[in-house]
């Protein structure tokens, strides 16, 4: 797969990014070099190998367990503050570029 200027513009558009023409050319170069690197994987013959999206999918399962217990290791119980407290309201908004004290404020958007 070869990335051209058009593909970079398309992806930038989806992410609401505005790139200068210098940035665009750099992205074309960088993305192509990353893809070329990953393409080396295609040299391997993977016929008959099941696609695997998560490396850990094959690990951690206690094969002796059945039912809901079997998935315990990869899930949590439905308890408030079970894993972590929610942030305080102030902490949640602390990094917001703009807020009115209650809400995050962002440049006007229209529903799409």
């Amino acid at each position, binding site marked *: 797969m070869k990335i051209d200027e058009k593909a970079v513009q398309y992806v930038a558009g989806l992410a609401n990014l505005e790139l200068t023409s210098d940035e665009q050319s750099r992205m074309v170069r960088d993305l192509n070099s990353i893809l070329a690197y990953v393409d080396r994987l295609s040299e391997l013959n993977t016929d008959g190998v099941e696609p695997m999206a998560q490396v850990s999918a094959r690990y*951690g399962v206690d094969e002796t367990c059945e*039912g809901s217990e079997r998935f315990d290791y990869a899930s949590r119980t439905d308890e408030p503050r079970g894993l972590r407290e929610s942030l305080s309201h102030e902490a949640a908004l602390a990094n917001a570029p703009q807020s009115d004290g209650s809400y995050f404020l962002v440049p006007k*958007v229209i529903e799409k």
Partner: protein
Amino acid sequence: MATLATPPALTRADFEPVIGLEVHVQLLTATKIFCSCANQFGSAPNSNVCPVCLGMPGSLPVLNRKAVEFAALAAMALNCRVNETSIFARKNYFYPDLPKGYQISQYDKPLAEHGWIDVACSPNNATGGDANGTKRIGITRLHMEEDAGKSLHDGFADSASKTAIDLNRTGTPLVEIVSEPDLRSGDEAYEYLTRLREIILYTGVSDGNMEEGSLRCDANVSVRPRGQEKLGTKAEIKNVNSFRFVREAIAYEIERQIELILGGGTVVQETRLYNSAEGRTYSMRSKEQAHDYRYFPEPDLLPLVVDTKWQAEIRSRLPELPEARRARMVAEYGITEQDAGVLTASRTLADQFESAAKAAKNPKRVANLVQGELMGRLKAAGLEIEQSPVSMAGVAMSADLVEEGKISGKQLKELYDICFAGVAQSENGARGEDFAAVYEREKPQQLSDSVAIEKIVDEVITASPKQVEQYRAGKTTMMAYFVGQVMKATKGQANPAMVNEVVGRKLG
């Protein structure tokens, strides 16, 4: 030379509407789907948030097991097949109410598939109704995903230039239920949604509250010439906030598309919004940009495995569903299908009715009273059964009093009238009184004094020689006449069982 026949012009009736619905249902878990923040409507803005649902770098989602069980329970109630392995995927799009830049959803391997709901329609209708007046609507899939936050575009001082964002809703567990394009009218869509919501409510996995957004519906509407297999271009009508409006929006959209085509135009694929005040849909006029969500498997979550045993655990929690319950109640209490429909409108109501009926001496009498005395008064007062002044416990109590002969049928009617009197007098506010309170206050006296009854019976017999003659000549139906005369003389207060006994004895 052969001439080519021009095909006859299409008319309105030549078009067939095709509708598919996507319904989002919020699950009633205590916490969010991927973090321990409270899943709660109506909290102060941005108070139930943490690094996970705020999409902060480095935070990782951990799946809520209860959300899985609720989703699977809903799937089973909708006759879906639950897949042993399903995969979470990232749906990438850029919008401020979704701070991560993607929604965790499911894509090519959803939690469940191949379900259906039977909806009521007229028997053997043109759109696939069977002889019993039901039509089966397929459910393509049910998948899990997280809800996004809320954007508020209006109502703030700087709303002209800013949008306010509340991320409390971000991460609320959802199931999305996608129907097959089996629906052919707004009415069918309305039926489907009503049944779907009822089933979901019975399972208890959601409160189905449309005002609070716990249940939301998008409709895909297209039309095609009858007989054509290929689907027409669809318009998506988004976020209509009541079933009635869904029905209206679909009806409008069908007409709009047919008109457009008959006028030589073509339907464009777009998202439209329904304006309920004007009764029409509008194009959202967003930039013409095809959505490209670039789905890929969520690397931060393992494939979800709900094995056979776990599925069995979940299935064991499946309650009796409305359809089955209606059928059983018709058989068990001898009530009409229509009344069974009213009594099973919610699981709570059906439970209340059944526990009242079972606690009463004669369950069928409870059913009869609901049917004969309660429903009509509710209808006259314009009340839903949930707003009834007479509770199910009250109905059961009144049934027992009649059963024990402590009050007559006439007295019961009078007491019910008193219960409802307060309702009739006030437009709003007054809710009437429950039966127990009214009975305790009024305590209608029933004449159960056998000497007094015998005296009245004697008087009636003396005053009706002709009727006595007829009775003795074999016309036993005259019995009712005598009982009626005695009841009249006692203003309905005589114990009917005793009157029957005494009249029978004296005449016999």
